[in-house]
């Protein structure tokens, strides 16, 4: 490949990439669903009496949530939807990416969790590489394991990672003369990726005026800078979406699907299935690491509680809702799950509980105050609903929204057919 990418190539690439996305209904589906969710949030915000700033902030929060989920569901789709690798250790890989990036970018004076103070982009790269290596180490021995054993290994690994993070012994240690640390149970502090919003407002020309204009309308500075980060996050997801769509629509993606279907057949056709599994596992894990940092780690602080196994299961559910195997489905599932099943109920519970003092326990609630009890305790009920939804999906709609769609894994349209002479002759003679 020749040295620098010329401007023309860059322009062509962007146009082709967008073309791939806008070509079908897919982008319209995603936009449509997002619009629906926004309308719902606006309606709820108005009902709750929020000012404009509050409503904008709600939309911002929902979008960030959806973008974070979208990224992780896309990564899990690569593992499971395409290749059939049942990875329930997503939370663990997210933790590795976040913590390594944190330790690399955190200044040596930071407490808790001192680090190397490297520039953030390098730290991000380091985090992704570390997670990819972790993925390789996990996948290597698991190559010959059956699917449910891989599931158990990945969840065990995820727990080992979480416990190691929590452990006091790793809270602070010395490596090659430098003091580093995970912070143990207290968690780790590091430069927040979310703070880039503030940096952009201060440095990019015109942004400061825009910020003032927004403040005048009621969107104050923290929300404004938060919006900037939101756009950056969405852009990142969009980039990964187009990369992954390319991977899926290619011979590489085709081999992945074949591995999921019947690994022996793929092998018997000459494909070195182990290499494919390793590559995609490492790549997907790197993406999970990045997603962990940009989404769960956006505030500049995480601890072991940020990465509990529940997160993995939620991402799985979002993938099943959207349709395993479909990239657009992954995004749709991510949006649906994060906003409708997570954010909205939480929102309702926080803003519509009304009652002065809801009963403290179910026993007390039996004497007439059941509804306030339910609203304040919607948390557990939400998970019950998620559990029931999962059972329903597996029983009745295992393909989710888009899983049944024929998405040919090829770089060209496989339906196109050359007009061969023999066919023309056949048509003439019939």
């Amino acid at each position, binding site marked *: 490949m020749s040295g620098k990418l010329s401007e023309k*190539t860059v322009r062509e690439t962007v146009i082709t990439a967008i073309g791939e996305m806008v070509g079908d209904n897919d982008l319209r589906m995603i936009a449509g669903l997002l619009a629906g969710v926004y309308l719902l949030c606006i309606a709820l915000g108005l009902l709750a009496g929020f000012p404009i700033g509050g409503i904008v902030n709600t939309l911002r929060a929902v979008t960030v949530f959806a973008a974070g989920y979208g990224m992780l569901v896309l990564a899990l789709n690569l593992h499971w939807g395409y290749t059939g690798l049942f990875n329930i250790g997503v939370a663990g890989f997210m933790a590795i990416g976040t913590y390594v990036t944190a330790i690399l970018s955190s200044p040596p004076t930071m407490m808790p969790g001192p680090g190397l103070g490297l520039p953030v982009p390098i730290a991000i790269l380091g985090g992704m590489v570390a997670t990819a290596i972790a993925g390789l180490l996990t996948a290597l021995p698991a190559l010959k394991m059956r699917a449910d054993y891989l599931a158990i290994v990945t969840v065990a690994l995820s727990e080992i990672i979480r416990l190691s993070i929590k452990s006091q012994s790793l809270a602070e240690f010395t490596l090659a003369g430098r003091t580093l640390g995970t912070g143990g149970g207290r968690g780790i502090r590091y430069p927040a990726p979310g703070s880039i919003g503030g940096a952009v407002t201060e440095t990019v020309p015109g942004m400061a005026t825009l910020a003032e204009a927004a403040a005048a309308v009621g969107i104050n500075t923290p929300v404004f800078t938060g919006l900037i980060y939101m756009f950056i996050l969405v852009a990142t997801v969009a980039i990964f979406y187009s990369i992954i769509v390319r991977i899926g629509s290619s011979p*590489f993606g*085709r081999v992945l699907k074949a591995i999921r279907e019947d690994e022996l057949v793929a092998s018997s056709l*000459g494909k*070195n299935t182990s290499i494919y599994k390793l590559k995609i596992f490492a790549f997907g894990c790197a993406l999970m690491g990045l997603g962990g940092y940009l989404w769960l780690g956006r505030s500049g602080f995480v601890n072991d509680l940020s990465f509990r196994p529940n997160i993995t299961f939620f991402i799985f559910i979002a993938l099943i809702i959207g349709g395993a195997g479909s990239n657009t489905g992954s995004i749709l599932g991510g949006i649906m799950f994060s906003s409708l099943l997570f954010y909205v109920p939480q929102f309702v519970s926080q803003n519509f509980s009304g009652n002065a003092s809801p009963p403290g326990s179910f026993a007390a609630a039996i004497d007439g105050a059941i509804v306030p009890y339910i609203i304040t305790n919607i948390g557990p009920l939400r998970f019950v609903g998620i559990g029931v939804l999962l059972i329903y999906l597996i029983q009745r709609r295992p393909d989710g929204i888009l899983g049944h769609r024929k998405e040919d894994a*090829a*770089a060209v349209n*496989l339906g196109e057919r050359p007009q061969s002479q023999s066919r023309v002759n056949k048509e003439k003679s019939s």
Partner: protein
Amino acid sequence: MSQQTLTLSENTTTETPLRVESLRKEFGGITAVADTSFAVEKGSLTGLIGPNGAGKSTTFNCITGVYTPTAGRVYFDDTDITTDSPHEIAQQGLVRTFQIARELSEMTVMENMMLSPKHQQGESLLRSVLPGLREAVIKQEEKNRERVWEMLEFFEIDHLAGEYAGNLSGGQAKLLEMARALMTDPEVVLLDEPLAGVNPTLEQKLLDRIHTLCDEGYTFLLVEHDMNIIMNHCERIIVMHQGQVLADGDADAIRENERVIDAYLGDPV
């Protein structure tokens, strides 16, 4: 089917591209294959027959790397492939079909076929994504697509190109199985009962094509239970029984062989 669909490498010069020597495969206490030796001649259609349990599938699996033999050696083009893995063996040019068709059911017929061609640039992660390199991938995909259409037309399943392979009938799935194997442009093809459920006209057409390919230097080892096909088309027949080679010769020799007749217990041969 155009001449360009399959091209045989000019490097092969051995007279017996496939050789099995003293092959032995034990599972726990059971010996499925015991001291089996044979050599398949280049450009031949050789039959491999025997009653159920004779060890034919096990032999296939040992040759193609699915099993590691307990003892003995397998040679492909004079190269020892005994311990090679299935994908290495397929890459070298030895491909097989499965007795029970293993179509990739959640993928379309076209996708199934597009897997087969060798040296696909798009099978690299980087090349499928990066601009410039992806253009080359697209070009190669277009070429492969053309060749796939030709193959599908020849096998008369082109009208099913966009179908999920899981929706095919038994016979159609077997055709896909064989088409997919041939699409890898192999040197030696092991066919495990490829014609079960295929209509007689198409069956004849396929056998004719196999003969033409044999003339061009391709080698076929065919497991079949239909004795007519074996007797009328195979220039040489290997008979296995209880894990061993019982007889090895042309159709007349096998027909008159007492032990073969005994093994089949009076089956019309």
